[in-house]
């Protein structure tokens, strides 16, 4: 356990009254939510609680019907996904989106922001971006090394295992140099041997000074590494606190139990 939850509250992400409806059904209705800098915040809740929808809305992959949110002091409500990423809020996906037809290295290089060779007027002139590309290359190799993927750099991402793709996606997100990393179920479908390695990487992100929010529905995983836990049910935040506070919260217990009951029926 880390003690950084004792740090002075300094929210990097503040959500106010965000609502998302689908065909009249309220999928998300969050009155207030703050994510503090340099912490790991877990977003938990039973299936259908609206965690991924909230994620999609906040990261610009879905639109909100109402509400606003601030990232790093800037009102970013309704910004398109790419601008949010450039601002420093980068996400991963529940179903990994490793770009299967690109090599592992190309996946990484793609992540780097502000490459001048990505501008169509500069791109044909290799000498204009060669040096920059070399630097990006080095950064990518260092990260791949960290994540144990450097041996696979020339392979197509399609050839990686499920867990390796999760690692690649996380490493690729870091190429953007985000302040806030939003991980959507990073442990889902990962073989148990790799889970520890993934958790270790998540903790390292925080220790390097980044902020992490991750969606998870397995309580045990959450307890071990999170500084704060936010629990959602039926689109609302029903509990928000330290792991210990949340696990004892009656509403949380009910939400999970309720689901278990529903499943039993």
């Amino acid at each position: 356990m880390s003690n950084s939850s004792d740090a002075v509250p300094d929210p990097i992400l503040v959500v106010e009254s965000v609502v998302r409806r689908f065909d009249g059904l309220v999928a998300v209705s969050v009155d207030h939510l703050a994510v503090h800098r340099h912490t790991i915040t877990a977003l938990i809740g039973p299936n259908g609680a609206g965690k991924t929808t909230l994620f999609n809305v906040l990261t610009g992959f879905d639109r909100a019907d109402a509400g606003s949110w601030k990232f790093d002091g800037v009102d970013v409500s309704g910004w398109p996904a790419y601008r949010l990423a450039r601002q420093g809020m980068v996400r991963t996906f529940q179903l990994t989106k490793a770009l299967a037809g690109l090599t592992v290295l190309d996946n990484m290089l793609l992540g780097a922001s502000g490459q001048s060779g990505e501008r169509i007027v500069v791109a044909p002139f290799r000498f204009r971006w060669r040096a920059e590309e070399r630097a990006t290359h080095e950064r990518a190799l260092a990260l791949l090394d960290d994540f144990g993927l450097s041996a696979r750099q020339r392979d197509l991402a399609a050839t990686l295992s499920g867990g390796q793709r999760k690692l690649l996606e996380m490493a690729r997100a870091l190429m953007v140099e985000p302040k806030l990393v939003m991980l959507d179920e990073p442990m889902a479908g990962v073989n148990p041997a790799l889970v520890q390695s993934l958790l270790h990487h998540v903790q390292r992100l925080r220790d390097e000074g980044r902020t992490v929010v991750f969606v998870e529905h397995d309580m045990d995983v959450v307890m071990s590494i999170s500084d704060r836990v936010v629990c959602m049910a039926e689109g609302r935040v029903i509990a928000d606190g330290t792991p210990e506070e949340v696990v004892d919260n009656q509403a949380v217990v009910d939400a999970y139990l309720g689901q278990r009951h529903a499943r039993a029926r």
Partner: protein
Amino acid sequence: MPKAGRVVVVFGLASISALLSGGRAHAVTTTTTTSTASAASIGGMLTVDNHPVPGVRVTASRGAAEVGHAVSDRRGAWRIGVPGPGTYKVALDVSTLPSGVRAERPELAEYRVFGSFAQSAGFTLSAGQSKAPGGQSRLDVFLNLFVSGIRFGLIVGLCAVGLSLIYGTTGLVNFAHGELVTFGALIAWLVNTMSSGPKLPLVLAAIIGMIATGLLGATLELGLWRPMVRRRSGASGRMLVSIGLALFLRYIYEVIFKGAPRSFRQYAAPSPVKLGPLQSPVRDYVIMAICLATLLVVGTMLRRTRLGTAIRAVSDERDLSSASGINVEGVTLLVWISGGMLAALGGVMLGMGSQGVQWNMGFRLLLTIFAAVVLGGLGNPYGAMAGGLVVGVASQVGTYWLPSDLQFAIALVILILVLLARPQGILGVRERIG
């Protein structure tokens, strides 16, 4: 029609004669040296206010020598074979024009033929000063256009439902759907008119055409699409295959049935009946009734029957449906059969109209069908019906203001405008934005 009964009209109707040439435009002759006979020809349609003008003599000449002539047929169509590329003089014999009709420019002095294919030449005919044929008022013209728009829209709707269902259940944008439309009409025409054939009445012939097209749909699904899906071909690969299939089938039709439009033995040239301001033959009302009834039956079946529910389930969530015990492949097969039958019915109905049955009739309709399907929201069968009506009415009524050679363009412009405003279509549900 606009301005003091002056009826601006037609021409080499772009969508007909141009497509007659079927894209051979770029078979550039400078590089071919084969000794085959030239297939160059000049042709067009003579109409006034959408009424064909038959019996007009058109001549083509080079220098002083006449190279060919033709007389416009019942549909107003004429075509003259010419020896090959070069500049010709194409002229209308004004003395053969019906009284009250005159040609704005009866002579095209330098008409250039530049390949071995069917080209179109336009003559603008206008009706005399006083009144359009039948002495209709402007409101009457509008109403009649509206009604013929509904008829056309219902036919488009029939074809569009099948396309939409196929898209919904299989994810395939089927570019060969027009060829199903043509197939139904051609089979019905064969059974109805072929001299060595049974010469069945049109009603029976239409049913046989529908059955045959349903079988064609089933054959394609079993022999082509299902194996491709099993081999995990992507939707894009199948879309390209459907383009190849469309070319393949369409030009086989042309080889077998040749270029000219044909008509059924019955109901070919009925006389219009006056019903208030409306002037349509009884046939047109029957067509509308059949289309409407069919659409209602299909709509009800989709809502009320187990099969309909299964089809809608597969449309929504193919994988989930499979997991919940629905026979997805069986449902897909049925959708191909019923989509084929609906297309065939649409084809027969279309073939009963003034354009007749022709090898490329379905292809000419394809983009209009696409417009209907997209307007209604891709994969939504009810939307496709509504989209068909909108496109049909708009393209007909639009000719009240615009020259009728732009009719087809009107439908497509509407499509693009609607996409701008409501990408999910008229009835579609808004998807998440990217």
